[in-house]
């Protein structure tokens, strides 16, 4: 547990650093010993998983933290063997069904059924239900989500589901209506700063407030990232200085360069180069929507105020199609080409106006 992220992660609801009110609500929720299905959502690095684990600890005690990895193999009706890893304690089971790709429906059905159908023996000392924690629910196929609907109701008596995802927009509404939705927003910059300061204090380091603030901003309030950045800063140069260079993730740098390349020149050749860079990003497992988002942010900062609404609208249009389609590269490139066309026209018009 050497990384700060892991070392200083709070383990109980009471020790949470921010969103204390919500923590209280959660505490009250499980106080009576029971709770409905939960749908925990929020951006990455906001502390969803931390909260869920705290909740489980509140519910079952320290036994939840004794985790083990189980390799499960499930045979689909089509005789296809699906291997999936689960992380389990005595009281709960954590699965990432999207690991199974297209067969996630089978995983959901089989796993939840096996968990839910086994009754707890000593229900006097323990809760009478187990918890199944499904992560990345927004990456589930529609089939799997529909398979989840009935299962959720049917095994209510023996099992609770906690669904964890980044966005509810990809979770079908029947599931949303069956769950109590808990939104975990990103911490504010101040909150991030305070967390950083407290961690550094525990480490016995002196963190300048200015640097903490910069780290918080650069990490985009993603607490995990902020802590990692802070630790990376520490590794680079210990006695912190306020204007220290903060290491950034490579893909962000790369994406920024790509955006600059788009703005600098608009031609088919440049589009080819951009395509190669987009491919590069995709092959590094950067999700297409993140690429799109990053590109738009960078491009918007580079273009004129008149163009902004148009570019944003285009981005939304192509992002939507990207979600519907299969080959992300087409849609990304289509967006880039469209931007090039608009930008070029704008620039030429501007030039004309300037000349006459």
């Amino acid at each position, binding site marked *: 547990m050497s990384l700060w992220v892991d070392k200083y992660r709070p383990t109980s609801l009471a020790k949470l650093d921010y969103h204390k009110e919500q923590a209280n609500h959660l505490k009250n929720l499980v106080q009576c010993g029971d709770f409905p299905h939960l749908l925990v959502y929020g951006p990455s690095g906001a502390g969803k998983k931390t909260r869920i684990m705290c909740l489980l600890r509140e519910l079952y005690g320290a036994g939840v933290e004794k985790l083990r990895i189980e390799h499960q193999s499930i045979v689909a009706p089509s005789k296809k063997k699906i291997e999936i890893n689960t992380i389990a304690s005595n009281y709960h089971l954590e699965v990432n069904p999207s690991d199974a790709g297209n067969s996630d429906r089978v995983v959901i059905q089989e796993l939840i059924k096996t968990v839910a159908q086994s009754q707890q023996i000593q229900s006097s000392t323990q809760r009478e239900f187990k918890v199944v924690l499904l992560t990345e629910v927004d990456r589930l196929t529609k089939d799997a989500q529909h398979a989840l609907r009935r299962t959720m109701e049917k095994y209510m008596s023996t099992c609770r589901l906690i669904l964890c995802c980044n966005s509810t927009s990809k979770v079908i509404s029947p599931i949303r209506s069956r769950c109590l939705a808990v939104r975990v927003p990103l911490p504010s910059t101040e909150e991030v700063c305070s967390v950083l300061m407290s961690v550094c204090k525990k480490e016995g380091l002196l963190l300048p407030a200015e640097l903490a603030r910069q780290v918080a901003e650069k990490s985009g309030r993603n607490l995990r990232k902020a802590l990692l950045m802070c630790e990376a800063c520490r590794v680079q140069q210990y006695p912190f200085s306020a204007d220290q260079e903060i290491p950034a993730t490579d893909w962000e740098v790369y994406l920024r360069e790509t955006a600059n390349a788009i703005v600098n020149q608009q031609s088919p050749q440049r589009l080819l180069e951009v395509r190669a860079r987009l491919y590069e990003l995709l092959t590094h497992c950067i999700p297409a929507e993140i690429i799109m988002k990053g590109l738009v942010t960078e491009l918007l900062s580079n273009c004129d105020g008149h163009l902004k609404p148009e570019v944003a609208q285009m981005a939304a249009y192509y992002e939507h199609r990207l979600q519907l389609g299969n080959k992300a590269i087409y849609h990304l490139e289509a967006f880039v080409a469209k931007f090039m066309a608009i930008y070029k*026209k704008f620039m030429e018009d501007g030039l004309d106006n300037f000349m006459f």
Partner: protein
Amino acid sequence: MDEYDEMYGIEDDYEQQFADELEVMAEMEHEPPCGVKVSEFRSKRQTFEEALTSADSALLKPVAAEALALEEDECLTPKAKKRKHDVAKKLHFEATHDEGDGDGDKEITPPSSPEVYQRSERTRSGFSLSLSPSRPVVSEPVSVMDISGLAVLQESPKRVREPRHALRRPPASGDYITVTDCTGNRVYLRQDPDLDPDLQTPDPRFFRNSQNTLGLLAVPVEVLKEQASERRHRQLVEESQRLTELLNSGIDPELLADEGSEDTEDVNVRVSDESSGSRLWVDRFAPQHYMELLSDDFTNRCLLKWLKLWDSVVFGRERKPRPPAAESRVNGAQNQNQNQRFKTKSQVTEEILEAELDQYKRPKLKVALLSGPPGLGKTTLAHIIAKHAGYNVVEINASDDRSAELFQKRIDTATQMKSVLGANEKPNCLIIDEIDGAPSAAINVLLATLNRKDSREGEESTSNPLKKKKKKESVLLRPIICICNDLYTPALRPLRQQAFLLTFPPTQQSRLTQRLAEVTRRQGMKADTGSLMALCEKTDNDIRACINTLQFLHGRGQRQLDQRVVNSMSIGLKDQNKGLFSVWQEIFQLPRLKRKRIGGDPHGGFEEAGLKDVTQRLQHILHLASSCGEHEKLTQGLYDNFLSMKLKDPSLLGVCSGLDWLCFSDLVNECVLHGQNYSLMRYLPFLPAAFHHLFAANSVPRISYPNSHYEGLMKTQHTKNALVAMVAEIPPSIRTRICQSNLCLDILSLLLELISPKLRPVNPQLYSTREKQQLCELIDTMINYNLTYRQERTPEGQYTYVLEPNIEDVVRFSGLPPRRQLTYQVKQLISRETEMERMRRVERAQQKRNPQQTETVEEVKEVKKPQTQKPKIRNHHQRLENIVKQTVVENKPETDFFGRAVVPKEKVSPNTSTEDDGKPGGVSQIGKAVGKSDVWFRFNEGVSNAVRRNVYIRELL
């Protein structure tokens, strides 16, 4: 024969070069090698010639002329015309003979069935052969084929001899031929070797005719009689042949049916055009002779030569050795005729054909593999050549079951057995059609059959003769011809190396057009050459498609074929299966050439060219794309290449709309695949059409194969594998917090930063406490995240340490400036420390499992020497105890060398040992000592590892 003599007789060269062909032609005309039909031809021809010679007298001539006139309108090509003509004539004369002088011979009944008919023909031919001065007498009916001095034959009338030579039992001396008539009676015909052609008895009819030269009738009685009987005979023959066809179709549908039907066909065409309307024209007008083949002459000749190579093993005939001079002359002649490129290719083929026979006198390559697109006449060629070379054709095609066992069975049947019933005494020639569709198991069976000899060769020499004979049977001794469309089917790969490959060039358009013209003429359709040419072009010179199209039009009552009809027709079109590259090419290139030609063509609408051009082009591309099939690849190719085209598109609007099309196509594809909504698939070909519209240019596009998508996929897979490998070993407490996306996005990049701190490249013993702590943390992190450094040797021979799993690949981007790397020494240090820490942890985990041991660990630290007894009984203890128990009982109290009792003075650990070991008291202390000692050894014949001792990692580190 006489025609060919006239045509080719002058050129000696030619005779040499096309010896095989000439041979076949000769056989075709003078021999009945393969069935009723040809023999009929031959016999008829002869009688016709007889008639002609006899009709020196002017009387008979008008008849012939009349007959000629009668049938002229129905005739085919000059060649065929004559032959057909002969057929008719022959039949007539045959009939007369049978009626007239056939009465006398009891043995041979009038030809009610073609079988018998043929039989009598054959005997006659045998006789005729014996007449030829150049050849010795031959006893085998098949070997008769070799005759080349044919001129003599024409004049030889043989009919008359039959009755005289028919014997009830085999003649005591001399050669004879056995004949069975339809009633089952067997007669023997003597072959007279002494016959001199000059002394032959003249044709009786000749005399008859000559006698009648003074007759009073304008038409001689004989002729009238002939005409009457001719008519009767024709009906008779027709009926009998129809019957035989029926019968044959029951017996051997593949072979006899089409032979029989050919015969009927010839008659039918004449008698009633309508009666055979239900048959496919393709079958009706299929070539029957070598000379009628439309396919490339060189290919035909090669296959024929190859088949002839088998003669020595199949028929026991020796090949005629060819003078090498002639050979070179042939090549010289070829050089003049053919251009340089084809010469080399043909020479290669020639070489194969001239190659030595193997020990079984078989050709080196035992299988011929014909390949080419459909409709070139591959199957027809194989059948005809096999027939002409004197084989009985056995065909296996895709309609048969081709599982390996059945295939084996059929091959064996075809190659090793012979028909014992009279019908087909000829050796079999196996034709495996459509072999590219056969499963690879079946092809392996075929290969095994081919190579059978090689594997058994060694055995055969040693084994006894009986066995030898048995084995020899299993060696392949019959030719096999395989036919396929796609030579490069994976299943055919092994066969390709062992086969005599013949690729069919496309049919010559002129020849095809000529044939089509004949067909149309015979069917009463009107068609000009131009439209037929257009038809040929439309079908890519596919004979079958052309004729089928004609029949289709004919069937719909269309008797007039002009260019317009051909152009407007969509039926003649095959599924064009063009290569992806040509499709891409067509999409990115404006059809400049084509437009020119249409403009130059007097019929092709000048008026349509301008406006309709775009729509036509779009239609064309649509058709092309939809028939291509591989839409995914096609799209990918367009995507990869369109930006490198020369775009005149400064505002990038075309590019945008092209990409929009791609997006649309992607959405549609997703719908099709995900929702199984296949009706949407029809919209997919519009993408290529749109691309053609947007990006087609006049210049020739340079197209590269699209591999970007595949590469991307591979790289993604590589990345994912690295991630999975990394995650697999991460302890669960950390693992719950990470998933693939946040590993990629947040953690890994910074983690790499974290594990490369500034460390002094010195021995870690020299580190300050803070540095030590830093190192400690680093190693902890690396272990927690399942990372190590692994030594690797670069191609240059240097050693480097790389991360394992290699997440640097996952994180690093090619364009970015390289990050600060740790030095080799530091990496080495980290690697070592990591390994040690791992070992420590493993040991700790083990000790955790046995909590008692943990106590002793502390003790050990105090005592410093590992002399404490482990409370747990270890393996060697158990074993030793057993030994001790056994030995101790016998042992007296321990004595020293001098026999005195020894007081045991073993050093026994004071604290735990006595209480913990619950050993029975009877065991002596020395035994205990042996069992309890921490050091022990086992006699292991001097091997150094015999002495063992427990050593802990912590003692080493």
